[in-house]
């Protein structure tokens, strides 16, 4: 890592730290952000490999994996077994959501960007910040080791619905579950790992809120904050309010599995075949409510920061003021607010009272409104701009193009009668990947290409960046778009072998096409990895402000030293002064002195 060793004399007295304190147990928000970035990318790789295995099985359900297949737990010769398949799709989702997207967006970019963009020296609580990263490590260790416990890792879907996830043997008969070989020890590991992830995110969100409220540089009013910071701020509120519910739910299921409580095990006890579910008094639906009360806001935790980052990237490279700054802020707040009253749309077919479904449906459909407002404002921002097609910008534009698809397809599932048919088919798989892969991951790529020079002082290679972008954009669309079609045809999700069903005969060629595209998509990411690692050491040196951007982080050196700014910047205007006709340059950084002859902004 080419982190600067120069320490300009600031007012903040500090001494040279040893390697361990500086890069490993660091309290510097930038290093912590980079730590989240590196671990996120490693887990992205793991999650991606799991995804390819899932796709292989769906595309070629009768196929064998010569040699490799034999190593799979419970393999059927050289084929993977249905139980193994359940394990890999469950772990794919778990890793992508809890170990990749949330840590990358809030952990990596939240940590790196917030203090720099508001002109602070560091987070409000640097030690808490360090803890929030190191609480991820028990989670990393537990989730990775869960692949090797008896029965393998969790295999009840990333949603872990009881009873599949939580049925247990009677007291004293061990933790192996009768419901599925993957819901014994693996499930306990899953629950424990997620508790750690949750605590980590919780510490992060408290820190972000405090930092944004208290540590803004002079002149940085709330409505002069870049949209990235606004998005992180509102995301932190979401996390702070929703995470306790998930943590409690995880602990309740953990108790169900370990000490035979029955929070999620229904009355009936021995009536469930020969399975012991305890004397019983709980409700399986309770888990779904608690889980989605967190996990629906979590969907917005996984998209709002990307929306904020993309807004900044688009304004920078369109060389244009963001269109409708305040409506953009209000839209983020609107999505977050409505996000708390829509969780029931995951449960329309769950056996929940259908009258509740009607209410959840109306709230859910209305959440498309702030999303539409944001899309139109992005279009307004590039309209009349002077667009520089950097890799960061291409990824940001891809975010907008793909979020439109993911947003619109959501309306189908929100509409309860249509959802009766479309629920738990591949249509939802298409939708969620258009939001979480095609939007969030493009947002993350955009952020990496954009802030890489600030993080490491070097630029990523643009040519290979564009090759990577082109491959990713093309193959991800080939991988995920046909899922809409097979979903409309009624292909259920999480099927080990759909060729048993004659009504799905005709979609199997599409499945194979998607699998091949997914493999090419995976290969494309090798270009990214090589570019990333090569640029770390050999990339062209970036100056303080390679993109001619306005926000405060670009006034600090690249990479910024400990303490970030040589002197605390004084903010004089909003973050999007691009293309102002009164001045010669096409940008005017937030902390630059007011040019003579230009009227100061009113706000």
């Amino acid at each position: 890592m080419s982190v600067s060793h120069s320490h300009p004399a600031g007012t903040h007295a500090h001494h040279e730290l040893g390697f361990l304190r500086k890069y490993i147990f660091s309290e510097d928000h930038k290093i912590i952000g980079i730590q989240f970035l590196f671990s996120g990318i490693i887990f992205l790789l793991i999650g991606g490999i799991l995804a390819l295995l899932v796709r292989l099985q769906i595309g070629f359900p009768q196929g064998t994996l010569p040699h490799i297949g034999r190593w799979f737990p419970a393999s059927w010769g050289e084929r993977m077994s249905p139980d193994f398949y359940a394990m890999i799709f469950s772990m794919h989702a778990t890793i992508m959501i809890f170990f990749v997207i949330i840590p990358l967006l809030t952990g990596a970019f939240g940590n790196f960007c917030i203090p720099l963009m508001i002109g602070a020296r560091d987070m409000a609580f640097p030690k808490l910040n360090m803890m929030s990263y190191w609480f991820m490590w028990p989670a990393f260790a537990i989730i990775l080791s869960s692949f090797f416990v008896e029965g393998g890792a969790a295999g009840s879907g990333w949603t872990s619905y009881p009873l599949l996830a939580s049925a247990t043997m009677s007291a004293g008969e061990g933790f192996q579950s009768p419901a599925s070989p993957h819901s014994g020890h693996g499930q306990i590991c899953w629950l424990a790992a997620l508790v750690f992830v949750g605590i980590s995110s919780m510490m992060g969100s408290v820190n972000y809120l405090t930092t944004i409220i208290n540590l803004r540089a002079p002149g940085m009013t709330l409505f002069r904050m870049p949209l990235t910071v606004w998005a992180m701020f509102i995301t932190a509120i979401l996390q702070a309010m929703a995470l306790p519910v998930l943590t409690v739910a995880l602990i309740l299921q953990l108790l169900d599995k370990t000490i035979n409580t029955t929070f999620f095990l229904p009355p009936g006890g021995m009536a469930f075949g020969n399975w012991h579910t305890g004397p019983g008094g709980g409700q399986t639906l309770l888990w779904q409510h608690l889980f989605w009360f967190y996990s629906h806001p979590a969907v917005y935790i996984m998209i709002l920061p990307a929306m904020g980052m993309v807004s900044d990237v688009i304004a920078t490279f369109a060389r244009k003021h963001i269109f409708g700054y305040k409506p953009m802020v209000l839209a983020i707040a609107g999505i977050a607010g409505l996000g708390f009253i829509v969780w029931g749309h995951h449960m329309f077919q769950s056996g929940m009272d259908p009258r509740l479904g009607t209410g959840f449906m109306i709230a859910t459909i209305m959440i498309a409104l702030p999303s539409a407002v944001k899309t139109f404002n992005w279009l307004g921002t590039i309209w009349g701009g002077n667009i520089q097609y950097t890799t960061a910008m291409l990824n940001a534009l891809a975010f907008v193009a793909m979020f439109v698809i993911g947003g619109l397809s959501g309306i189908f599932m929100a509409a309860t009668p249509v959802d009766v048919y479309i629920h738990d088919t591949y249509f939802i798989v298409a939708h969620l990947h258009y939001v979480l892969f095609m939007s969030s991951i493009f947002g993350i790529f955009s952020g990496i290409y954009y802030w890489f020079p600030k993080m490491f002082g070097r630029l990523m290679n643009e040519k290979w960046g564009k090759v990577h972008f082109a491959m990713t954009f093309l193959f991800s669309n080939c991988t995920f778009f046909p899922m809409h079609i097979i979903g409309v045809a009624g292909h259920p999700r999480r099927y080990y072998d759909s060729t048993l069903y004659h009504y799905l005969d005709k979609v199997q060629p599409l499945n194979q096409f998607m699998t091949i595209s997914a493999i090419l998509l995976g290969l494309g990411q090798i270009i990214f990895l090589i570019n990333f690692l090569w640029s770390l050491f050999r990339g062209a040196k970036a100056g303080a402000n390679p993109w001619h951007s306005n926000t405060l982080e670009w006034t600090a050196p690249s990479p910024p030293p400990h303490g970030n700014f040589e002197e605390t910047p004084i903010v004089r205007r909003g973050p999007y002064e691009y293309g102002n006709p009164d001045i010669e340059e096409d940008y005017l950084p937030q902390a630059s002195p007011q040019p003579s002859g230009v009227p100061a902004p009113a706000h």
Partner: protein
Amino acid sequence: MQQKGWSIFFGVVLLGEFLLFAVAPFVKGWWLPDNVSSFGGEVDYLYYVILGFTGFFFVLTEVLLVWAMYRFAWLPNTKSQYIEGNHRLELLWTIVPAGILLFIAFAQINAWEKIKYQARMPEPDLVLGVTARQWDWSMRYADEAKPENFRAWAEIPAIDDIYLPDELHCWKGGNVKIYLKTQDVLHSLFLPQLRLKQDALPGKTIPVWFQATEANVRFNEETGKCDLSDNKEWEIACAELCGGGHYRMRGLLYVHESKEDYLKWFKHAQAEARSRQPEKKPTPVVAKD
């Protein structure tokens, strides 16, 4: 040109996606399966309404995006327009989508109530008990198509019930009420052609109704089997992850031409069941609340 090339790249990919959706309805097996239920038409209609609105906004926003990418590609020594926003435009693109979304939302309510509200379910002509388990469907048929006290029958099996794995029989035009249970984990009864899906919850009995509007079998008294007409094979699937065998909970839906045909089949199946050794039946699930 290299700058403008990116807008073309975006345009081509998005056009491909548009064309896939335009072509799919005409490819057999790539679109909604044939609808054979009384409320399926409404589900399909609402699907097309939403497809119309979302398709319109998809084309509108993507065309604007691609056009802007083309039109406003980088030119040296050029400045962008200096605009901070437009209050009227914001109002326009807030109020118009809000109106459309509210319309979409309220348009759903009637069909949803019709499909799922217990109070609106019609008086049944045929009552069935369906119990999901790892990994098949156990269908329970009463001696009469509709037992006198069918709500009690749903909870307490009768001595002359017959059980069939994975075969759901009913007749065209008959209102069917299923009492859906699960013996172990969550399952979800999914009948694509009926546009019907309902999760089964441990410890609960959930009523589900449908009326098939088309028949696909006729009982053949000589062979004692049901003959499929025109290869209309209508499958039942499980739509909620229920363990390793989730994918193989395949069942079949048999819609007879008439009640008489159904009864002929039923008498035959009953006689066959009685001639077999009595099997040990699964213990009934009795909800205590």
